[in-house]
C-alpha cells in the first residue's frame, strides 16, 4: 500500500495558457474575452485570471458584478477589463464605476442607475448595451432598442457614459436560429449607428460560434469552454481544435475486497457480482460532483485500464469492479482528464452521464482540493 490522497482536481495551468494563447493568435485582430464565470468553471478564478493575462488576454467576463469587484479590490489584473452582465435589482453600480468594471445593461432602469452612479462620482460608466436577439434572457428587445440607444447616446453626450460595447447572446439552437440572431444583431448595430452611437467592442459570439463563423466575430469573441479545453461543438474534440483539457478529476483507491458471486453492491443492491471478483472503493461521490447517473457502468481508469462503476454512486464514494486485476489501496483512479493516460475526457464523461462538460466542470464540489500544475516560473 502506498500513501495517497482521497480526491483531487488537478488544473493544468500550462494547458490553460496554451489554449488561450492559441485562441488569441488565431482570432487576432479580434479580441478574446475569457469567460471566468462560476469561479472560472470551478477551477479557481483568482488563479486562472493572472494565467490568462500571461497568455495575452485583456478582457474577462464574470457574469455577475461581485466577483469582478472582488478581483479589482484585490488588485488582480488591473490592466485588464472585467465585464459583467447579469445584474441584480440593486446592484453595486457605484462599485462598478469606482473600479472601472464594464457592465452589460439591458434596461433603461439599469442604464440610468449606472449613469447616476457615474454622475455622483464625477466619473464615467463603462457601458455595453445588451441586445436580445432571441435568447430571451438579458437584453433589450428590438422593439425598445431605439429608445434605449437614444438615451445611452444622450448620457454619453452628457459625459457620464462611455459606449464601450454592444453585445448579445445566441441560443445555439441551430445554424438557422443563430443566423437569424446575427441578422437581428447587425440590424440593431446599424440602427444604433443611425442614432449616433458607436461602440468600441461589438460582440455576440461565444466559444463555438467564434471558431466556426468568422463573420460573427465582430470586434470580440467571448471564450468560455474552449479556454478550458472542452469544446462544446458536437463531434469536435479538444485535439481537433489544438486544445488541451485543463482539468483532471481523480481519487485514490481506499479499499479493495474480494467478494463471491452474487454479492450485492452499494445502496439498493442495484448491482450484484456475476462471479467472484474484486471490488475497489473510490472515495469520491455525488457531493463532489460525480453524478449519480455515472452509476450504470461509466468507466474510470486505473493503471491505464478501464473499469466500470458498479452499484449506486453515493454521496462520498463509489465502487468499481476490477475483476481479478491486482489493484491496490493507494492506486490512483482517473475519472476524467486529458485522455493521455487512457482515461475518459471530460466531454466523454459528460456524454456518459447525460450532460454537458460545463456542468461537470462547474459542479466539482468544494470538498475536492484543487491542485495546480504548470505554474509560470
Amino acid at each position: 500500500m502506498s500513501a495517497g490522497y482521497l480526491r483531487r482536481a488537478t488544473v493544468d495551468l500550462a494547458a490553460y495558457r496554451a489554449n488561450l494563447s492559441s485562441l488569441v493568435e488565431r482570432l487576432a485582430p479580434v479580441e478574446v474575452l475569457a469567460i471566468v464565470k462560476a469561479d472560472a468553471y470551478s477551477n479557481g478564478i483568482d488563479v486562472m485570471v493572472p494565467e490568462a493575462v500571461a497568455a495575452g488576454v485583456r478582457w474577462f467576463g464574470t457574469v455577475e458584478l461581485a466577483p469582478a469587484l472582488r478581483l479589482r479590490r484585490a488588485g488582480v489584473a488591473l490592466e485588464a477589463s472585467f465585464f459583467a452582465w447579469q445584474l441584480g435589482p440593486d446592484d453595486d453600480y457605484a462599485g462598478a464605476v469606482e473600479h472601472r468594471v464594464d457592465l452589460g445593461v439591458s434596461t433603461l432602469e439599469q442604464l440610468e442607475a449606472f449613469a447616476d452612479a457615474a454622475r455622483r462620482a464625477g466619473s464615467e460608466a463603462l457601458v455595453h448595451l445588451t441586445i436580445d436577439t432571441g435568447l430571451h434572457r438579458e437584453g433589450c428587445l428590438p422593439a425598445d432598442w431605439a429608445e434605449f440607444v437614444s438615451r445611452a447616446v444622450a448620457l454619453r453626450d452628457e459625459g457620464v457614459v462611455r459606449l464601450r460595447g454592444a453585445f448579445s447572446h445566441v441560443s445555439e439552437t441551430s445554424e438557422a436560429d443563430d443566423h437569424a440572431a446575427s441578422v437581428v444583431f447587425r440590424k440593431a448595430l446599424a440602427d444604433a449607428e443611425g442614432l449616433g452611437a458607436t461602440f468600441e467592442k461589438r460582440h455576440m459570439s461565444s466559444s463555438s460560434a467564434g471558431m466556426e463563423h468568422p463573420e460573427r466575430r465582430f470586434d470580440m469573441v467571448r471564450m468560455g469552454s474552449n479556454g478550458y479545453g472542452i469544446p462544446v461543438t458536437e463531434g469536435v474534440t479538444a485535439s481537433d481544435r489544438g486544445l488541451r483539457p485543463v482539468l483532471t478529476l481523480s481519487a485514490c483507491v481506499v479499499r479493495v475486497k474480494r467478494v463471491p458471486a452474487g454479492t450485492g453492491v452499494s445502496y439498493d443492491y442495484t448491482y450484484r457480482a456475476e462471479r467472484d471478483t474484486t471490488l475497489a472503493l473510490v472515495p469520491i461521490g455525488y457531493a463532489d460532483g460525480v453524478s449519480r447517473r455515472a452509476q450504470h457502468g461509466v468507466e474510470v481508469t486505473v493503471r491505464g485500464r478501464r473499469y466500470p462503476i458498479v452499484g449506486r454512486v453515493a454521496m462520498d464514494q463509489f465502487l468499481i469492479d476490477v475483476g481479478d486485476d491486482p489493484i491496490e489501496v493507494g492506486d490512483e483512479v482517473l475519472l476524467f482528464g486529458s485522455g493521455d493516460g487512457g482515461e475518459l475526457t471530460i466531454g466523454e464523461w459528460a456524454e456518459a452521464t447525460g450532460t454537458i462538460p460545463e456542468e461537470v466542470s462547474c459542479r466539482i464540489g468544494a470538498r475536492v482540493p484543487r491542485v495546480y500544475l504548470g505554474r509560470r516560473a
Partner: protein
Amino acid sequence: MTQDAIITVDTAALRHNVGVLRAAVAPRAVMVVVKADAYGHGAVESAKAFVEAGADWLGVADLDEALALRRGGLTAPILAWLHAPGESFEAAAAHDITPAVSDVAQLEAAASAGVRAVHLCVDTGLSRNGAVEAEWPAFFRRAAELADRLPVEGLMSHLSNASPEEDGKQAAAFVRARGLLGDLGIDPELSHLAASAAGLSYSGTRFGLVRFGLAAYGISPFGGRTAAEWGLRPALTLSAPVTTIKRVPAGEGVSYGYLFRPERDTTIAVVPVGYADGVDRAASDRASVTIGRRTYRVRGRIAMNALVIDVGDDPVEVGDDVVLFGDPASGHQSAEDWATASGGIAYETVACLSGALTRRYL
C-alpha cells in the same frame, strides 16, 4: 450588495428535527451526520445547532471535514470513517477526532498516533467500507490486543436499504460481529448500524446509537413518506431575486436550445441561479418554483448561472423573491420535488449545492 442566489437555513428547524429524532430512538444516543458541508446546509453552523439540540455525536466522512468542525469551534465527539490510503491519524489524535477503522493497518496507525479511541467498521453487506466477515477474527483479535492503549468505543456498519429482508440479514451479521467481539472481551459502548431510513422504520436495526443524516435536515429518506409525516421540518430554502422580466410573443424560443416556445404570449422571468450553483441541469423544463403563493414552471435549459420561468400574465417584478425549494408547509416546492424533476434523490438536491453560495442562518 450582491444579487446572487442565497441559501437560508432555519436553525430552529434543525434543532426541532434533532428533538424529534432523539425522541424517536430514545434512550439510544444520536449521531448527526454533517458530511458534505452538512448536506449543503453549511457544516459549522448546522453542527452547532444540532449539538445545542442534544446531538451526542457528529459524523463526517473524512478527517478534513472533522478538522473544519474543530476549527469552527465544535467540541462535541466527532467520528470520521473514510480515510486516505496510508492515513497516519496524527491530525485525528491532535484534534480529538475519533476514527472508525476498517482494517488492521488503520488500527495500527491509529494506535501509533495515539488517538483517544476507535470505532471498528465492519461490512455487513454493502460492500463499501468496513472489514468483511472473513477478516473479522484477525481484525478483532488485533483490536483486543491494542485495547489497553486504544479503547474500542464503537462498532459500526452501514445498511444497503435494499429491502427489509436484506437489512435484516445485515442486522444479523452485525449481531454476529458483536458476539465475536464479546468473545474477545470487547463490549463497545456504542454499536451503530442504522441511519435515517432504518433508524426511523426498523427498530430491529437500532443498537446503542443511531446515525441521522438526511432526516435531521427535515428531508424524508423514503419515496413514500414525506418529512412532515415524521414531524420533521425542512431547514433549507434556496431562493434568488428576479433580475429580468420580459414579454415574449407566442412561438419564440427561450434560453439555450430554444427548448421552450410558449404557445401564447407570455411573460418570462430570469432568475440568477444555475447549474454552477448546484441546480441540476436535468431539471430543465420540469422543475417548478414559487413566487409568493404561486407556482411557476422552469422553462428552457437551465444555464450555468441563470434559469427562466414562465409567469404567464402575472404581475411579477424585478426583485421579487423566487423560491426554488424550501418547506412545502409554506407552499414551496420541496427538495424531493426538485429531485423528482431531475431524476435524482433529495440527498443530491441539497448536498450538491455549491459551497460558494451565501448561506444565511435564521
